[in-house]
């Protein structure tokens, strides 16, 4: 409404100015001269020009974007505000060249910039909407083409004029359009990636990686451009204050992209080398739903040392953020002395009976957990019913629930023991070549040749190393029990999974907690067998029900879920 009033007013003023000039001079050229000589008239004309630009912008926005979303509009306003302040700062450097043409060029730059921002937001929006119309594609493609050509034209123009006339304000425009040009390229790449993803049948796992590298390359180009710009400006004019904010943001984004790429590469590497693929049986035994994306796991899933299973792609993107198990927050980092900042927060206490922190102890052993569990050594299997490395964690916490060489997928409690104890001595590294004793190797151990004896000795050494490790773990465990005086009871050990649910800190003195706890321990056996997600859904419904204070449909749902949990127990 106000905009309409202002444009009408400006229109009226312009008409008055034009009419006045024509009335005084009666001819075209004298009128023009009259207007340009008169300052008030020129002011009116300038205002009119700005309003015309604004109206054109509005029309173009309507054509290319339709209705703007609130977030897009706010984003646009915020960025426009910064751009205008930076332009004002730039004016101070180039005050000698401060002419109407200069102002007009800056206005045009700002105008084009705003369309770049909108295009960027709109293409990012593709990831958020389940419906992408043909109109959308046509709009984005034409817009990208128009913006790209405009940027290229102005870039070329400022390059030629700088070459011809020497450094001038065109330098600034050249850099600005170069930046905008990389932005168009970035948007176009993202658009292509999003489009491919949108029309492909299966989820495209590698898209995130492509986006990561695009981000990195574009970030690098931007930083280089800005640094070059600042250096040139310092050499020719003075310190370009107006370029510092964008330079800062560009370098920050680049740093972030760089870190992301490194973390992603590390995550992929860890994934490929450290964690075993989940077998179909394990998938069957688990709920088969990946807790990260809530979709079925059919192919390429990984099992973590804590026996939680996720999609490989989901896990990779999560490990880029944090090196913990999403379900139980077990720190899965192989190197406890890592210096990544992401590790710090996880060093905070986790509410499990042993405290939290990096868990150095688990990691050396997980290859054993994954592969060497069924060590096919006849003697040893007889002597110790369970393989030593996996025995302490399982048997101490819930040894009653299962026996056998392959631990069921979720039999592990949602934490690993011995997390905070420092090492007195480093644990012996388990043998790596221990699991796969083929018939051939077994045959090699029989007989009296030197080679056979050596093979037997080696095998025995391996066993000794594993036993040493087991003894060490037991020692640490008993030390842990001794030091933590207030060892929680068994019902409390199931608590962490429940605590994830009642995640508000104030819950600790909640009056409903009692019944909630009882509830959890009630089904603790079932919980241990079932997927954590389900238990938590169950637990949450029980909290809400407690607060609702009465029998409700949830009661029924809960009972049914309970029954579902108990089935796997009975089957075992």
């Amino acid at each position, binding site marked *: 409404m106000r905009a309409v009033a202002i444009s009408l007013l400006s229109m009226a003023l312009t008409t008055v100015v034009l009419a006045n000039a024509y009335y005084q001079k009666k001819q075209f050229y004298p009128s023009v001269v009259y207007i340009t000589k008169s300052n008030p008239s020129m002011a009116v004309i300038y205002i009119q020009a700005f309003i015309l630009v604004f109206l054109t912008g509005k029309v173009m926005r309507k054509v290319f974007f339709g209705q703007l979303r609130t*977030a897009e509009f706010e984003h646009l306003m915020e960025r426009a505000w910064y751009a205008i302040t930076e332009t004002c700062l730039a004016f101070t450097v180039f005050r000698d060249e401060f002419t109407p043409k200069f102002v007009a060029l800056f206005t045009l730059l700002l105008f084009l910039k705003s369309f770049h921002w909108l295009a960027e937001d709109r293409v*990012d*929006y593709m*990831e*958020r909407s*389940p*419906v992408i119309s043909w109109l959308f594609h046509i709009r984005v493609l034409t817009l990208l083409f128009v913006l790209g050509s405009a940027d290229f034209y102005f870039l070329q123009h400022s390059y030629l004029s700088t070459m011809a006339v020497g450094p001038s304000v065109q330098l600034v425009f050249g850099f600005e359009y170069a930046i905008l040009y990389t932005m168009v390229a970035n948007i176009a790449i993202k658009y292509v990636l*999003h489009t491919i*993803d*949108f*029309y492909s*049948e*299966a*989820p495209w796992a590698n898209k995130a990686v492509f986006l990561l590298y695009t981000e990195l390359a574009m970030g690098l180009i931007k930083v280089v451009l800005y640094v070059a710009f600042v250096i040139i400006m310092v050499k020719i004019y003075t310190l370009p204050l107006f370029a510092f904010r964008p330079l800062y943001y560009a370098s920050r984004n680049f740093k972030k992209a760089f870190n992301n790429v490194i973390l992603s590469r590390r995550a992929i590497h860890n994934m490929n080398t450290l964690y075993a693929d989940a077998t179909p049986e394990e998938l069957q035994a688990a709920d088969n739903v990946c*807790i*990260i*994306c*809530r*979709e079925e796991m059919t192919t390429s899933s990984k099992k973590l040392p804590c026996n939680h299973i996720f999609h490989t792609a*989901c896990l990779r*993107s*999560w490990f880029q*953020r*944090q090196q913990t198990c*999403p379900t139980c*927050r077990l720190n899965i980092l192989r190197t406890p002395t890592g210096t990544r*900042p992401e590790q*710090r*927060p*996880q060093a*905070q*206490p*986790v*509410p499990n009976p042993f405290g*939290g922190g990096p868990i150095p102890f688990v990691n050396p052993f997980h290859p054993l957990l994954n592969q060497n569990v069924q060590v096919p050594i006849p003697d040893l299997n007889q002597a110790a019913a369970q393989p030593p490395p996996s025995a302490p964690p399982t048997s101490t916490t819930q040894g009653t629930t299962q026996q056998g060489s392959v631990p069921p997928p979720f039999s592990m409690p949602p934490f690993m023991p011995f997390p905070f104890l420092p090492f007195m001595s480093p644990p012996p590294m388990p043998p790596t070549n221990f699991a796969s004793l083929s018939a051939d190797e077994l045959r090699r151990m029989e007989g009296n040749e030197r080679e056979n004896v050596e093979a037997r000795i080696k095998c025995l050494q391996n066993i000794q190393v594993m036993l040493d490790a087991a003894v060490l773990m037991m020692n640490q465990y008993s030390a842990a029990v001794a030091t933590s005086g207030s060892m929680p009871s068994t019902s409390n050990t199931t608590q*962490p999974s429940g*605590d*994830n*649910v*009642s*995640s*508000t*800190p*104030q*819950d600790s*003195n*909640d009056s409903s907690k009692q019944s909630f706890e009882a509830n959890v321990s009630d089904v603790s056996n079932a919980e241990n067998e079932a997927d*954590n997600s389900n238990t*938590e*859904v169950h637990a*949450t*419904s029980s*909290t*809400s029900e407690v*607060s*609702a*204070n009465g029998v*409700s449909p*949830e009661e029924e*749902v809960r009972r049914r879920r309970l029954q579902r949990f108990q089935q796997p127990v009975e089957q075992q």
Partner: protein
Amino acid sequence: MAGSALRRLMAEYKQLTLNPPEGIIAGPINEENFFEWEALITGPEGTCFEGGVFPAKLIFPCDYPLSPPKMQFTCEMFHPNIYSDGRVCISILHAPGDDPMGYESSAERWSPVQSVEKILLSVVSMLAEPNDESGANVDAAKMWRENREEFNKIADRIVRKTLGIYIRE
């Protein structure tokens, strides 16, 4: 195929519609954009917020569920864990690593295991049992500790306001 964040949000929406937790309604404001949700939360029974229906907005990041959503009440609220502009400050909404209050353990923080449903249930329990140590709203925390009667009065006024019943003070 839509992005994984979008697919997960659609799955959660479906789950919430098929099996809604009591006293909570939530869903996208506009089904063309699944990253902005609206939620209606009824005040838990037996608390000073009983009977109120509180509207809130949930904004999800592009990388949901790797990062938590943001939640903001769109009605007036007076609560120790809600900023005066309506933003909710509970640990489940904070990614491990950012700890504005410096008191939360990482186990209570955001992880992909959490969900919209769990967030909303946590908010309900937060309404029932404020944590006056977090202090997103210091005045409310102080009043909750020291002058419960006054706090209940304000809560009652807010409850009435959300129901469209205005009383003269």
